[in-house]
């Protein structure tokens, strides 16, 4: 099926098989490997992307479902050499260790801040409760999101 969508602000048109997930489409067809597969069954959040302003687990979304929509991945956060506030705070506050969960964390946080510009710590934790991290214990990630929201 032919799909036409916007990915990180750029128009994309491709022929895809309906059984291809959005995750595989991004990683394999578009070579945007920033979005990761951690489990393949929507239990870890590593595959989070923003689909029309909503954070979704792309490993259980079909690529064809993104037809006519806009997708934002971690590669789309930096604009014209300027990092997103979230990215800056993640760097500054030690919220990045191995980096594998980081794209998912950033996208979920971005979607949160798009809807709620000043979330409480509780709201941040709730929003991130589907993104697993084995390295950080989450503390510095929550602090970074808080700091990014503060300004």
């Amino acid at each position, binding site marked *: 099926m032919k799909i036409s969508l916007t990915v990180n602000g750029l128009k994309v048109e491709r022929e895809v098989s309906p059984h291809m997930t959005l995750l595989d489409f991004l*990683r394999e067809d578009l*070579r*945007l*490997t*920033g*979005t*990761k*597969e*951690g*489990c*393949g*069954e929507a*239990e*870890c959040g*590593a595959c989070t992307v923003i689909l029309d302003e909503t954070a979704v687990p792309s490993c259980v979304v079909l690529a064809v479902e993104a037809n006519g929509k806009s997708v934002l*991945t*971690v*590669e789309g*956060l*930096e604009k014209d*050499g300027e*990092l997103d506030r979230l*990215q*800056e*705070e*993640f*760097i*500054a*506050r*030690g919220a*990045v*260790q*191995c*980096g*594998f*969960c*980081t*794209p998912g964390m*950033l996208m979920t946080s971005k979607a949160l801040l798009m809807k709620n510009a000043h979330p409480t710590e509780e709201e*941040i*934790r*709730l929003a*991130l*409760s*589907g*993104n*697993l*991290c*084995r*390295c*950080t*214990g*989450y*503390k*510095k990630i*929550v602090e970074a999101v808080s*700091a990014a929201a503060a300004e």
Partner: protein
Amino acid sequence: MITNKQILKILDEKQDTFYKGKQNYVGKYVGQRVPRVDAYEKVTGRLKFGADVELPNQLISRLKRSTHAHAKITRLDTSKAEALPGVVTVATGKEFNGLTGCYLNDSHVYAIDRVLWVGDIVAAVAAETAEIAEKAVELIEIEYEDMTPVFDAIEAMKPDAPLLHPNLGSYKWLKGFLFPKPGTNIANHFKLRKGDVEKGFAEADYIFEDTLSVPMVQHTPMESHACVVQVEAGNQVEMWACTQGPFLVRQMISDAFNIPLNKIRVHTTGVGGGFGAKLIAKNELYAIPLALKSHRPVKMAFNRSEEFLNTFVRQGLIMKMKTGVKKNGKMVARKIECIWDGGAFCDYGVSIARSGGYASAGPYDVENLWIDSYCVYTNKPSGGAYRGFGVPEAATVEEQQIDMIAERLGIPATEMRRINFYHEGDTHATGMKLHSVGCEECLDKVTTMLEKTPLKPKEGKLYGAGQAHVHKFTAHTVAASAVLKINEDNSILLYHAVSEIGQGSQTVMQQIVSEVLDVPIDQIQSVKADTHFTPYAWQTAASKATFFDGNACKYAAENAKKQLIELAAIRFDVPQEDVEFGGGKLWPKGKPESAQNFAQVSMGGSFPKAVFGHGIFTVEDGSGLDEQTGQGNRCSAFWMFGGQGAEVYVDTETGEVELARMVACHDVGTVINPTTAEGQLEGSVAQGLGIAMFEEMHFDEKGKLLNDSFTDYHLPTTLDMPLIETDFAVNSPHKEGPYGAKGMGEPALGPTAAAIANAVYNACGVRLFALPLTSERVWKALKDKEVQK
């Protein structure tokens, strides 16, 4: 790209709150909250991890795995799979039957004539697409003849137990380091005999015997193993792998396929968490036969089930402790038996049985010790290195026994620990003299943090706090080397084999080099390890990187500095003592206006000379351990100490344990980067919480793993986390560590589960034989206690 404004603000805010006492070393770069040098590529998603690597013309692979725990393969027919259009090649154990391993070569690549656990690999398929490879796997036909399996380590030690490795005697192993028992399922029997235990027990006022255990758990790094392998002309095997040990991977491949080391090239990609799971060759081994046969690049990216079953797990442990104490709590004798549930391959597990064994008596000076530590084969996935290397497992038992004994004696557990702790200069259980011993300072700080708790009583719940303290060894005589090149534009390339697995090593190495050369961190670019040109270093394991590789990098920087001074002396025509060095420049004494940078000093002028600094570090007086006594001069380059305190609320109606607060203080010698050091402690709390409360590998009666996915293998989420407070000891820098530093990645996990278990006991009087402390088990134990009343 990073706005310095925010970073400087945070450095100002946090520096004061972090250092509560005097500091060992706070330099220009070392001791500072330097933002991680690898963070930019991670927050932009640009860093390539194993599964992100793509080579033109690559094939996708899938594995055919055994559904039987212990069986002969009586028929293996891959013909239908091979005939499927799009399948390029299929490989089996008959063709690739070399054995390999880390310390003991007991591991097959694919099952040769027998399968040893449910999940053992019988064949591998490489095809044009994943869909075709998946179909092909299903077309492989296998018939098994079941053999009796054994799933329990104690059962496996019995004389009539089924033998998993009848050829154990013919395997290659590191002699003098391991003592396998051919004819049994004992892959290693480590012994430690110090003093006279029986005399000690005779002198004791009380003797207590307790046995506790921990089950098998899995590392679950967020990134599962992935690699791409290709075979170049001339049979050179080249791969990109997310590994913690490129040189060990290379060695294991060499052993498995009989290829010389200089024809194997391992590139390290980004590593999405290791925790020990990525130390040895696993998926690389399984992919190479496909690359050899197809002559095309082959990608092998594990799914989550394969990550559980085909990499490493953490061995289960049953530990029996017999401790003799005086009335005041001083321990006079300890007899310990550790039985490690090693799984089907124990090539790395044997080492855990060894060092986990010699550390099992805890950070306590006990005159008389008798320790037997067995690594035992069972028909389960292979146990191996997991953060802590036996210390968290043993501490879960040992630190609970300390609390149990203290309660029986009627003294506070903190007092009993204090009375028994090691001190600077004491002789360790293994016979080495201890230097840099921070356990008491850690105990003081943890106790203070617990006393200052903000937590209040909760209605309907029981509150309890508990502590645990550990010591952890590192490696002894392993090599680390580093090379540093100064480029023509004054930028620097740094080569060392430490894998950045999230612990922050890349940044720490650069901080050390920056400190020596007095150049900004971003003047240095680290190069990811490539076994063809990165100088050799032992794995990124054992919390050794800061000390061993840090020293190697320090020596390399000092070596470069020495060369630069020599060159500058010639260039400035002054004696070397009159060459000043600072701020990335050199100048003749009294003439700062003539300063030149490194590139100018070395490459400028009429006789340019490329400077590259090189450093090699190992511990010269490191030693092994005697086979009978487990004593040696220096079996570990240093010991790290640390303790944690847990505060819990127990819901007595449901048995639910809420971990409300966790405090930690560790002795790492010197903290090189406070942010990454805190991050290690905070992360270990999450991992320890998972192990203490949720994580367990459930096997059915046929040895099948029932929870090989995140649906039923539970990792803590943001909503399960407690308040966390961290601190570090400042009074025990190590005289041989770079700027006094030791290490911390592993001891961070050591005390966590034990502290939680002790807190739960203090809250509601329940102590379980085994982790995890699930609500159902706690509830059942509470019920049984009620009945007993």
